[in-house]
């Protein structure tokens, strides 16, 4: 154990010498390089997916800038400082969600926004993406691990309230990400395997009973369509049929940049948002997607290293959850577009068009950087 500790310290010393400026700015070099690579690639793909729309590109690029700024600012905050203010943030976030629920502004048919005209317009559910894991991490870090049943119960209530509020908006994708964010903290905190397994085992008979005794035929139909979108080719199935054709026709090396036919003939709806991976698959082929997945894998790997090296329990739990939730984004989005998973609105991180999601994601990486770069003062004591 002792030798291991020494080794980490010494490698950190090497790092410090190599990148003192970044270190002082509380920026993690490997993460920054990977994020900038993704940003560049994103604009590249988006240019094609949006039909060479420069306005859109400029918007996305400025969102990137705003996100990076937010990331740098958050990286300056000490994890201790965050832990102190997280509970308050959580309460404020839930209140805002209630406000949205009661009198939210209606955008795109779903009520997700708080809009004070001329002043500000935002989605409170986005804040919850970071506040949720931070709150559970704050709560569990004060308890003994692995968490006792009582503490698990309280954590589940803390997760459940915003989850239900966001499901009601209705925004299934975001609520799922928030559920994952909270659940991964419990998982990282060493939630007992037998509890995890027994909950999963209990879910099966409950679901079966619901199906046979409580659900109406139309509800069953809706779930069947949800699980198998291709049974509804005029609705969501349309997107999946077209996105599969787009990805599949890309082959190993793709048709080439700007040469995809499916996306450019308006076959593919939402080609620049949730379904952008289909454009990549069509134009850059299996090789292109594998390259993207490699970058994601490196980001996740770095996140897990930060988790393992974090010195406070709060930092470990939060970093682990943020990293794993990031993977959920990737897996759910690509799984959905390639027809493996049901369609829920989850964007492909850093590639899909959308400023709000970009800022949130980069802020989450800011938290990771903060956790990693504020460890020195302990080592120096």
């Amino acid at each position, binding site marked *: 154990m002792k030798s291991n500790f020494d080794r980490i310290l010494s490698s950190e010393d090497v790092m410090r010498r190599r990148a003192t400026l970044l270190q002082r700015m509380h920026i993690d070099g490997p993460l920054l390089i990977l994020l900038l690579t993704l940003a560049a690639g994103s604009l590249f793909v988006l240019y094609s997916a949006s039909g060479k729309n420069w306005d859109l590109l400029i918007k996305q690029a400025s969102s990137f800038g705003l996100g990076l700024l937010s990331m740098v600012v958050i990286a300056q905050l000490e994890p201790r400082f965050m832990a102190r203010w997280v509970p308050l943030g959580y309460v404020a976030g839930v209140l805002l969600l209630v406000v949205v629920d009661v009198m939210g502004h209606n955008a795109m048919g779903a009520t997700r926004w708080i809009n004070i005209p001329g002043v500000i317009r935002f989605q409170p559910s986005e804040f919850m993406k970071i506040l949720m894991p931070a709150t559970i991490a704050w709560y569990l870090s004060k308890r003994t691990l692995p968490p006792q049943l009582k503490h698990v119960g309280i954590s589940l209530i803390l997760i459940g309230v915003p989850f239900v509020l966001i499901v009601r908006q209705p925004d299934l994708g975001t609520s799922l990400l928030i559920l994952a964010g909270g659940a991964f903290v419990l998982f990282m905190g060493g939630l007992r395997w037998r509890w995890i397994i027994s909950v999963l085992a209990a879910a099966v008979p409950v679901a079966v009973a619901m199906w046979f005794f409580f659900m109406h035929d139309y509800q069953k139909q809706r779930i069947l369509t949800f699980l198998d979108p291709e049974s509804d080719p005029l609705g969501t199935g*349309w997107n999946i049929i077209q996105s599969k054709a787009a990805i*599949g026709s890309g082959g190993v090396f793709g048709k080439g940049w700007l040469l995809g036919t499916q996306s450019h*003939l308006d076959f593919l709806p939402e080609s620049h948002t949730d379904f952008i991976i289909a454009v990549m698959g069509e134009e850059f082929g299996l090789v292109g997607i594998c390259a993207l997945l490699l970058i994601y894998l490196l980001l996740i790997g770095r996140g897990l290293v930060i988790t393992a090296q974090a010195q406070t329990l709060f930092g470990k739990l939060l970093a682990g959850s943020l990293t794993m939730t990031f993977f959920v984004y990737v897996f759910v989005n690509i799984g959905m577009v390639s027809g493996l998973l049901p369609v829920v609105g989850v964007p492909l991180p850093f590639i899909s068009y959308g400023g709000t999601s970009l800022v949130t994601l980069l802020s989450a990486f800011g938290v990771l950087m903060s956790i990693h770069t504020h460890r020195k003062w302990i080592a120096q004591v």
Partner: protein
Amino acid sequence: MTQPIRIKDHEKDARLVRARVVFGAIMVVALLGVLIARLYFLQVIQYDYHSTLSENNRVHVQPIPPTRGLIFDRNGVVVADNRPSFSLSMTRERSGDWPQILDVIVEVLQLTPEDRVIFEKRMKQGRRPFEPVPILFELTEEQIARIAVNQFRLPGVEVVAQLVRHYPQGPHFAHSVGYMGRINEKELKSLDPVNYSGTHHIGKTGIERFYEPELHGQVGYEEVETNARGRVLRVLKRTDPVPGKDIVLSLDIKLQEAAEMALGGRRGAVVALDPNTGEVLAMVSQPSFDPNLFVTGISFKAYAELRDSIDRPLFNRVLRGLYPPGSTIKPAVAIAGLDAGVVTASSRVFDPGYYMLPNYDHKYRNWNRTGDGYVDLDTAIMRSNDTYFYDLAHKLGIDRLSTYMGKFGLGQKVSLDMFEESPGLMPSREWKRATRRQAWFPGETLILGIGQGYMQATPLQLAQATALVANKGIWNRPHLARTIEGEKPVDDNPIPNIVLRDPSDWTKVNHGMQQVMHGARGTARKAAIGAQYRIAGKSGTAQVVAIKQGEKYDRSKVQERHRDHALFVGFAPADDPKIVVAVMVENGESGSGVAAPVVRQIMDAWLLADDGRLKPEYGGPPSSTEVTASEE
């Protein structure tokens, strides 16, 4: 103190988290492997398949609209069916410069710039890429030929055969079955976009609207492979649509025609019900209109003509027409008085020709200025004596009167399946306080007793209130659909039956109503002359303009459109009712003189066989001995 424990905990926590990190990493790698395997499957193993689909050919999903359910009358006569009709449709993505193609269409078919504006509007409503949008309906042979000749100039334009609603009975059922029309922008927002993806028309009124989900059916689809020019190469997959359900109406076309004949071109409304089931046998609102005009889009001029006509053909008098029920409500008021115990069958009231409230000097007049002398219940109904009912209403009071009338369906929607039925108005103390911010005056109760004042009812409500008297308080909501694909409609919200303390009260009122038709001094005795069965009835008059105190209704001074509406309700055979009829003749003036003969003709049409005798299923010939038995 706690410091060492914390450090120890920290070590253990770190180990725990590290184990989970390792597990998480394995999970991430494994799931990324799954994704790569999926992509390998799509992009390498299925490459040829997808590449063929996307390179030269395109996959299209084409909706197949379901065939709309047919509507029949109770004898199986077709009331609404679907006919093939040719329309012109255009696919924006295949037409290239589509506004220019529209110009060509207008030129080829020699249409007007106004038509082009409509086409452009329709084109902008397109919903999905590569979905053909119909822009012109009911093409003639000549137009089809012109399009065919000029096809080379019209890429993306095609002539399509579709089924379009047709109403072979024309105006007969316009107010009950309603009509269909093109889906408008507002409806588009509330419709299931998938189920309606191949449908361009929707029920707008009547049965077509009320049973829209049942009639429409479930959309089917075809996954087809087309070449770059849009020609279908092959069908990859097909799911058949589920056709809409057929509806058999309870309406009888023969009775419907008889009722229209009986109205004889006058403006008015007729409802005929089977009191035992609530089935509507005839429903007439005159004048009517041809529903076929609306199906493929009515011209603005034709619509304006219908809308602005002084005779209001689009107005559904049966469901939306609100009239003070007048004396037709007296049987129901009599039931209320008997059940509340304020009158009995033998209690009498002296009628000097008017009624005065204690301490008021306003005279509430009987229609017969000379008065009827001592009046009991039977006579009061037979003679339609207003004084008796002023007295009854005064003793009953507004609260009880309002409650009882509510039980008879006044002030609420009574039908099971009729679109946009008006609930009418049954005033109460609370209603007046809420809407007028005024206390209730006793005089207002009096005039309610003879069906005047604030009270308003639709002809359908009058028929239903009469049906309740006929079948002794059993509630069957009036309905138009007898069966939907063989199944009877279900009433999810049944109204409780009217239960009287003494059920023989029903018979007493029924007897009074028989005296109206068959008694020597019955107000409508002329309408019952020669009847093969006994009729129970009640006439009524709905004032259009109020008459001042001390003034007399003088028809010569009143404009035709301001004359009273004539009302009559009745049922037959009186002792075993098979049909209830309510008739309103607009500006007809006399309930017993104008509306009663209409009721009689409709009853004859329903109850009598071709040889003029009562149909055997409705009982034998009437016993004429009873007719004068209880005369004074």
